[in-house]
């Protein structure tokens, strides 16, 4: 630094700000945890508010709450429990206009109360700005027991988007870029993204996830077909099995989902192999299919190898390959290659 230049105050406080913001997730976690414990010992901040004074969280367009899925079975169970014991754990709300309260955490409990015609609900009201409310909502969501891996992924992306002040859709490509740079030890990219990586790790660390693992195991969940997505949300399908099924043609998804219930990854791989063989046998028997591959003089592996070479030439333009969708499919190819290598035996 040139002598005589005063150091900017913002730079002086960068670490202090980081320490403070890192902590908000932990603080909010602790607060939400304490709400759970208030079931046995109601605290002073808690009071009963009228169910019809409560409305869902209202946020400006730039702060988007992730899609929320309310499983019918789970909702019914909750409703039964509330009918029997009442609402045990206070919901978290913030004061809104017109003497109303917006729900930060506890929308399902509130919906049940409405269904059951219960007039009052125990709540803790805290004044929060929009960002804080969204952060608290996301964290409460992440801490709930019945959250599916997809919702968890959505909520974590939401938190990262909030931390970085970037649209949620920009986050997956960004994370992929970071994970790749880390894997290849690309120092220039890592240096350029130093602050971003710090923030992202701050969020992920709170949930004990590493960037690489999030990119590898979680982001692919976002590209699942509708039926597979639905099954994961319902808890019918594990994330690994979901990605396996998603690689199969879409028209067989629902059948595979039914069959995959309770299977381990290995068992499912085997099942899909047999299922494929059966399907193809069936096709031959019926003698005709719209899905049939155009016949070619060349054996299939020769065609594939030459297509891969063509692709390789295109990869000179990195932005074509960096595309998230392309990346996902390349990863799919990679796992297929793993399987092929496994079948024919690694050299």
């Amino acid at each position: 630094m040139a002598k005589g230049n005063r150091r900017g105050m913002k730079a002086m406080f960068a670490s202090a700000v980081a320490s403070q913001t890192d902590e908000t997730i932990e603080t909010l976690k602790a607060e939400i945890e304490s709400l759970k414990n208030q079931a046995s010992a109601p605290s002073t901040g808690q009071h009963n508010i009228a169910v019809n004074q409560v409305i869902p969280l209202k946020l400006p367009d730039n702060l988007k709450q992730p899609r929320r899925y309310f499983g019918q079975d789970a909702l019914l169970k909750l409703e039964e429990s509330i009918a029997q014991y009442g609402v045990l754990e206070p919901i978290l709300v913030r004061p809104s206009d017109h003497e109303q309260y917006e729900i930060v955490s506890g929308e399902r409990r509130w919906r049940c109360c409405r269904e059951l015609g219960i007039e009052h609900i125990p709540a803790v009201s805290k004044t929060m700005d929009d960002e804080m409310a969204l952060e608290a909502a996301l964290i409460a969501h992440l801490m709930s027991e019945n959250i599916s891996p997809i919702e968890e992924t959505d909520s974590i992306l939401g938190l990262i988007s909030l931390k970085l002040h970037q649209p949620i859709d920009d986050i997956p490509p960004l994370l992929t870029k970071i994970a790749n740079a880390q894997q290849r030890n690309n120092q220039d990219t890592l240096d350029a993204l130093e602050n971003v990586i710090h923030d992202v790790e701050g969020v992920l660390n709170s949930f004990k996830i590493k960037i690489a693992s999030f990119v590898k195991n979680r982001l692919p969940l976002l590209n699942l077909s509708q039926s597979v997505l639905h099954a994961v949300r319902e808890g019918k399908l594990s994330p690994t099995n979901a990605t396996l099924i998603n690689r199969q043609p879409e028209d067989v998804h629902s059948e595979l989902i039914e069959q995959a219930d309770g299977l381990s990854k290995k068992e499912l791989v085997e099942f899909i192999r047999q299922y494929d063989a059966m399907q193809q046998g069936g096709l031959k028997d019926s003698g005709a299919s719209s899905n049939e591959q155009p016949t070619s003089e060349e054996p299939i592996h020769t065609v594939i190898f030459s297509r891969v070479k063509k692709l390789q030439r295109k990869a000179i333009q990195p932005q074509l390959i960096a595309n998230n969708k392309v990346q996902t499919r390349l990863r799919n190819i990679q796992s297929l290659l793993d399987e092929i290598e496994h079948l024919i035996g690694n050299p």
Partner: protein
Amino acid sequence: MKQRRIAIMSNSGGVGKTTLAVNLAYQFARKKKTVALLGCDPNGSLTLFCGLDDPIKEDGSLDFDKTMYSVLSSDFKGNYPLFKAWPNSVDGVDAILGGLVLTDAVNRLSVTDRSEYLLADHLDDYPLPHDIVIFDCPGTIEQLHTCVLAAATDVIVTLKPEDKDIDAVAKLIQWFFDKRKKLRLDKLREHPPVLRGILPNGFKDRAMHRDNMGLGKLPKEETLVGIMEEMEIELFPKIKDAADIANAGAHGLPLGIFRPGNQTNKVYEKIAARLMEE
């Protein structure tokens, strides 16, 4: 809250910690609150500012059992060595004095069980009867700060609007958040410490001070005003450099008694009022 425990901290010397401590105590006393001032600074300036003398034994040596040294001993049994501050002019303020002997107390901490929570444990196990406890901390971050942080419910940081002080304050604030997390105070304490505000002291009408206080040409985000706003930490009204403030201390009196008409009393009154809000 049963008892407010306010820690006055800084990361540089001579920036008005003890001055704030005694003047806050005086403002609380005016509101009929009882106050215990705990001198945690080896420089012992609290003794002077409270109009008191060092406690001495018959042979003339310092009676360290009558200082914070005894409260910071692991075998402390609740026998607080309290001295009435400003005995002739103010009611309801007691002081436990600091002094050089605290450096020994600090050395001893490293071999004490639960040393970080020592002060908190003692204040919990043997509660002081006062409405408010004020800790006057040393001018650099050390082990005593950690003890005080674990015991405090509120923290106020004082500084001079100099670049080097502000840099030190940034480090103190970072320390505050990191330490609070490391000590798990959010989980362990019923009222974990909150950083209540920053008080700029000794403001002089000079370019650097004006700049840092957002009165110069620097963009707001490069000033204390903008940064505290972003961090949502209250920036209390600045206190201008004035001889009366130093003179009051030297005379062993709070400014409110030494110069009741001095405008700075209003700032102390405001801070006291903020701290009495629930």
